[in-house]
C-alpha cells in the first residue's frame, strides 16, 4: 500500500479497540517471568558458554597474545580471536569493528571469546589470557579535539554551516541577546537486559536468538560480518529487555556467539558482563554547544544560532544536537552547525532521541535565559515565537503543530501561575522550591513496514511481522490495530514478532516503530479483508467488519466462515510517497517540573512532573503514557546524575557499571502526569499516528535545570546538575 495522499476516513477511525487504554497483552507473561529473553531460549540444546575477552587499552595493538593457559583450563572447548576467525566483514551500521586484534580501536573492544562447558569455567579461563599491548597515543579530550574539528553534515561528511537570512548581522543588531555555552556529557543506554545471544549452526545455516531492536538490520549486518548469505541467518528477538538505541546494531555477543558456536560445533550462549558493556558498546556522545539568540524587546526572535561539537571514532558521525533548532521557533535569521572531532573513545551512536535529547537540553535552558533577559514569562516567550511553517522553507507547513496548546494547557494544569519569576525566593520549610518549563520536540519519521495477517475458521486472527517490542507496547498496539481492522475483540488476535521469518517491518527506533509498524499491519489487514470479501462473494469496498461478522448490504456472515476451507492470509507493506517532504511531520509537547532544593545540603528532589504531548493519534494511551513517563525519568537522569566520566589519560569511561553510572531509582521519581492532546494526523499514515517514546525525553532535562534555577537563582549550563556545581552558590541561609 502506497501512502501518498492524506488518509481519508478508514476503519481505524471507529476506534472501538484502537485508542483504548487496554492492558498489554504480553503483561501476564512479563509479570510471571515467562516471557523469553535472548539468553533464555531452550531450543538450542546443550549449549556451551562463551566469555568475551576485552582490550585493556584504548588504542594500539598487541605485541603478543598468549592463550596457552586459556586453552588448557578446565572445561574449555574453543577459543576464538581475530586470528582464528579469519577476515570478517564490517557491518554497515558499525563504526568500530566488533572483534579487534591485533589492532585495537577502543577500550574493552572484544578481542576474543572463550567457550567452555560452564559459565564459571569460561569466565575463569578467560582471565588467564596474557596480552602484551603496544599502546598508541589517542585523543580522548573532546574540548581539545574540537579546537581543530571541521564542520560536518548530519552524516559526518564535510559541510558548511546552514544559514537562513543573515545571522551575524541580525544577531549583532538585536537589542536583547544571549550568547552562552552548554555541555552535555556522554550517556549510556544502560538498558536492563545485557547484550546477549545464543547461536547455533545447522550446516551452513545460523540461528541466533539475540536482543535486537531491528531484526532486518541485525540479520543483514551479522551475515555481512560472517561473510555468509543473509538468507542463511535466522535472527530472533521475541522479547527485548530494553534498547534505547543501544540494540539497533549487532554487537560483539552475537558475532562471538556465532564464531564460538562454529568453533565448538555446538550451540553457544554469550552475554556481555555489565561492567564490560559501557565501553564495549555505543553511547550517546558528549556535546559542547553554543547558542546565540537575538530578539526585539517585545520578545520576537530575530536571530537564532546553534552550534554543537561532538566526537567519534574515525569514520563516525556527529551528535546532531542542532536539528530541532531548525524547526522549533520562528526567526528570520538562523545559523546551525555541527563539528565532529575524532576521538579514540568507544563508538558514539544513537541513544533515545539522538540529536534532540542533548540539543533540547541546551536550547531549552537558553530559551529560559532569554525569557528572563526579556522580562517575559518563559511560556509566553515560547508562544510568541511559535511557527506553523518550516522557518527555512515557509512553503512547508507542519502537518499538525499544537505546541502552543501543549504549553497553555500544561501551564493551567500545573498551576504555572504560582511560579515566582524572581528566582531563589520560594521556600517550603528547608526546601527552596522552583518551577521549570521546556518545550518538547521530535520529528516523526516514516518507514516501510510489512506484515502478514491470517484468519482461521474459528474467527481468530494472527499477525506476523518482524517488528520488535522493546517495552514500547508493540505486541498490544499491533493486536489493537488488527482487532479494529478485522472487527474482532482484542483477545481474538495473537501477535508474533521479532523473527526474520516474518515480513520485514520498520523495527524499533527513532520513535517510528508504533506508527509505521501498525500502518504495515493496517495494509496487510486491508489485503485480508479483500480476500475475505472475495471468498464470501461480498463487495470488498463496502463490506463492514464488525463484531466478528462481515456485512455487505443485507448479507452477513461470521468472519470465520471465510476461512472454513482453510486459512486466509493477507500480506502487504506500507510505503510512503512525498507527503513527508511536502509537510513537516513532527511531534510536540511541553514539560513542567517542580523541584525542591535543600537549602542546607543542595540536594535536589523532584516534586511534580507533567508532560503534555501532541503526537497524532495515540493508539494505546496506557502504553503510550508509560513511554512518556519512562522518557521523563530518563530526562531526570540526564539532568541530575547521568554522566560517563572520561579517563583522558587512558581513554575509557571510568564508571562503567550500574553502581557508578547512576540512573534514577524509585526514590528519585515522584508521581508523573501525562496529557495527550486529541489528534489524528492524516498526513502521517493511515493510522494517523506518530510517536511519543522520544518526545517524552526531549526537553525534560532543561525543564529540571530551569526549575533548579528558579528555586536557587543558580544557572548551571553543564549537565548533570550535581550539587558540587551549585552548593556554594545557594542563597545565604540567614
Amino acid at each position, binding site marked *: 500500500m502506497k501512502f501518498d495522499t492524506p488518509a481519508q476516513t478508514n476503519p481505524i477511525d471507529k476506534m472501538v479497540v484502537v485508542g483504548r487504554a487496554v492492558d498489554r497483552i504480553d503483561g501476564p507473561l512479563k509479570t510471571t517471568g515467562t516471557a523469553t*529473553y535472548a539468553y533464555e531460549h531452550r531450543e538450542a540444546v546443550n549449549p556451551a558458554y562463551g566469555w568475551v575477552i576485552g582490550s585493556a587499552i584504548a588504542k594500539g595493538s598487541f605485541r603478543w597474545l598468549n592463550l596457552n593457559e586459556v586453552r588448557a583450563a578446565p572445561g574449555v572447548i574453543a577459543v576464538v580471536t581475530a586470528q582464528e576467525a579469519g577476515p570478517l566483514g564490517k557491518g554497515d551500521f558499525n563504526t568500530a569493528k566488533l572483534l579487534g586484534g591485533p589492532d585495537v580501536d577502543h577500550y574493552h573492544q572484544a578481542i576474543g571469546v572463550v567457550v567452555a562447558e560452564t559459565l564459571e569455567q569460561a569466565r575463569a579461563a578467560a582471565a588467564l589470557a596474557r596480552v602484551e599491548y603496544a599502546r598508541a597515543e589517542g585523543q580522548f579530550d573532546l574540548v581539545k579535539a574540537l579546537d581543530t574539528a571541521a564542520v560536518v553534515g548530519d552524516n559526518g561528511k564535510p559541510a558548511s554551516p546552514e544559514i537562513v537570512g543573515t545571522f551575524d548581522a541580525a544577531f549583532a543588531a538585536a537589542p536583547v541577546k544571549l550568547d552562552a555555552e552548554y555541555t552535555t556529557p556522554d550517556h549510556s543506554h544502560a538498558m536492563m537486559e545485557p547484550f546477549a545471544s545464543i547461536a547455533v549452526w545447522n550446516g551452513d545455516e545460523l540461528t541466533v536468538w539475540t536482543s535486537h531492536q531491528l531484526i532486518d538490520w541485525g540479520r543483514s549486518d551479522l551475515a555481512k560480518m560472517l561473510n555468509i548469505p543473509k538468507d542463511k541467518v535466522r535472527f530472533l528477538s521475541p522479547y527485548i529487555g530494553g534498547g534505547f538505541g543501544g540494540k539497533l546494531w549487532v554487537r560483539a555477543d552475537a558475532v562471538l556467539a556465532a564464531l564460538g558456536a562454529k568453533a565448538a560445533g555446538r550451540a553457544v550462549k554469550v552475554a556481555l558482563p555489565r561492567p564490560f558493556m559501557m565501553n564495549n558498546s555505543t553511547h550517546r556522545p558528549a556535546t559542547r554547544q553554543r547558542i546565540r539568540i537575538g530578539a526585539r524587546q517585545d520578545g520576537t526572535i530575530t536571530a537564532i544560532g546553534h552550534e554543537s561539537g561532538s566526537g567519534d571514532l574515525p569514520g563516525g558521525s556527529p551528535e546532531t544536537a542542532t536539528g530541532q533548532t531548525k524547526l522549533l521557533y520562528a526567526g528570520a535569521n538562523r545559523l546551525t552547525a555541527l563539528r565532529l572531532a575524532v576521538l579514540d573513545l568507544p563508538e558514539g551512536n544513537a541513544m533515545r532521541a539522538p540529536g534532540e535529547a542533548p540539543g533540547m537540553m541546551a536550547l531549552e535552558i537558553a530559551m529560559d535565559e532569554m525569557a528572563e533577559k526579556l522580562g517575559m514569562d518563559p511560556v509566553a516567550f515560547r508562544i510568541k515565537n511559535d511557527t506553523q511553517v518550516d522557518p527555512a522553507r515557509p512553503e512547508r507547513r507542519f502537518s499538525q503543530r499544537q505546541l502552543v496548546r501543549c504549553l497553555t494547557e500544561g501551564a493551567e494544569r500545573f498551576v504555572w501561575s504560582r511560579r515566582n519569576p524572581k528566582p531563589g525566593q520560594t521556600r517550603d520549610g528547608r526546601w527552596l522550591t522552583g518551577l521549570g518549563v521546556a518545550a518538547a520536540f521530535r520529528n516523526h519519521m516514516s518507514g516501510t513496514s510489512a506484515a502478514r495477517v491470517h484468519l482461521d475458521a474459528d474467527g481468530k486472527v494472527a499477525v506476523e511481522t518482524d517488528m520488535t517490542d522493546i517495552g514500547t507496547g508493540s505486541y498490544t498496539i499491533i493486536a489493537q490495530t488488527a482487532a479494529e481492522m478485522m472487527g474482532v475483540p482484542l483477545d481474538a488476535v495473537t501477535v508474533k514478532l521479532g523473527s526474520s521469518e516474518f515480513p520485514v517491518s520498520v523495527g524499533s527506533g527513532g520513535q517510528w516503530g508504533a506508527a509505521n509498524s501498525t500502518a504495515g499491519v493496517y495494509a496487510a489487514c486491508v489485503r485480508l479483508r479483500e480476500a475475505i470479501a472475495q471468498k464470501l462473494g461480498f463487495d470488498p469496498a463496502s463490506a463492514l467488519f464488525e463484531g466478528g461478522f462481515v456485512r455487505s448490504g443485507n448479507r452477513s456472515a461470521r468472519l470465520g466462515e471465510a476461512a472454513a476451507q482453510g486459512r486466509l492470509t493477507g500480506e502487504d507493506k506500507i510505503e510512503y510517497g512525498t507527503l513527508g517532504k511536502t509537510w513537516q511531520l513532527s511531534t510536540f509537547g511541553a514539560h513542567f517540573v517542580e523541584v525542591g532544593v535543600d537549602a542546607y545540603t543542595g540536594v535536589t528532589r523532584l516534586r511534580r512532573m507533567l508532560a503534555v504531548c501532541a503526537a497524532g493519534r495515540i493508539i494505546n494511551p496506557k502504553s503510550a503514557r508509560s513511554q512518556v513517563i519512562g522518557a521523563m525519568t530518563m530526562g531526570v537522569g540526564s539532568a541530575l546524575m547521568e554522566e560517563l566520566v572520561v579517563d583522558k589519560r587512558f581513554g575509557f569511561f571510568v564508571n562503567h557499571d550500574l553502581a557508578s553510572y547512576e540512573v534514577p531509582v524509585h526514590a528519585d521519581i515522584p508521581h508523573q502526569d501525562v496529557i495527550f492532546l486529541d489528534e489524528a494526523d492524516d498526513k502521517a499514515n493511515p493510522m494517523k499516528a506518530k510517536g511519543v517514546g522520544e518526545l517524552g525525553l526531549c526537553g525534560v532535562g532543561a525543564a529540571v535545570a530551569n526549575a533548579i534555577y528558579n528555586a536557587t537563582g543558580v544557572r548551571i549550563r553543564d549537565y548533570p546538575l550535581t550539587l558540587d556545581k551549585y552548593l556554594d552558590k545557594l542563597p545565604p541561609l540567614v
Partner: protein
Amino acid sequence: MPIMLKVNGQSRPLSLDTRTTLLDALREHLHLTGTKKGCDHGQCGACTVLVNGRRINSCLSLAIMHDGDEITTIEGLGTPDKLHPMQAAFVKHDGYQCGYCTPGQICSAVAVLEEIARGVPSHVQEDLTAAPRATNLEMRERMSGNICRCGAYSNIAEAMAEVAGVAG
C-alpha cells in the same frame, strides 16, 4: 558439590560448581529464567528472589550457601492464568515496559509490603520507633534497589499502593 534447594515448594537436588551463584543455579540449572541477570553485581535488583521469606539479590549469593533454603521466585508467586495480586496490579497499572526488571520488582514489592507490615524501619521514616506505613515515599525508598531503566516507577508505586490498600 551436591545441594538441595527448595524452590517454589519443590525440592530440587543439584550438583553445582562452588562458584555458581544462586542466580545461575536458578537460571542455568533449574531453567527458572524468570529471575533475571541485569548486572551480576548486586547493583540493579533484577535477580531479586525471596529466600526463607526475605528478599535478596540472588547474584550476590553462592548457591551452595543455600542448601536446604526455601526459595521463592517469580514463577512461584503466580502464573499467567493465576496471577498473584501484585502481578495483576503490575499489569493493570502498566508497572513495566520491557519486562526485564519486572520479576525482580514484583518480588521486591511483595517483600516490601511484608517488611512494612512487620515493622522493619527505613531511612525515610520520620519516627523510627513508630510503625512504618505504606506511604508513597516509604515504598519508593524501599524499592530503590530495583532499577527500572524504562522508568515505570510512577506506575509501580501505584500498583503497590493498590495491593497495600492505600491511596496512590
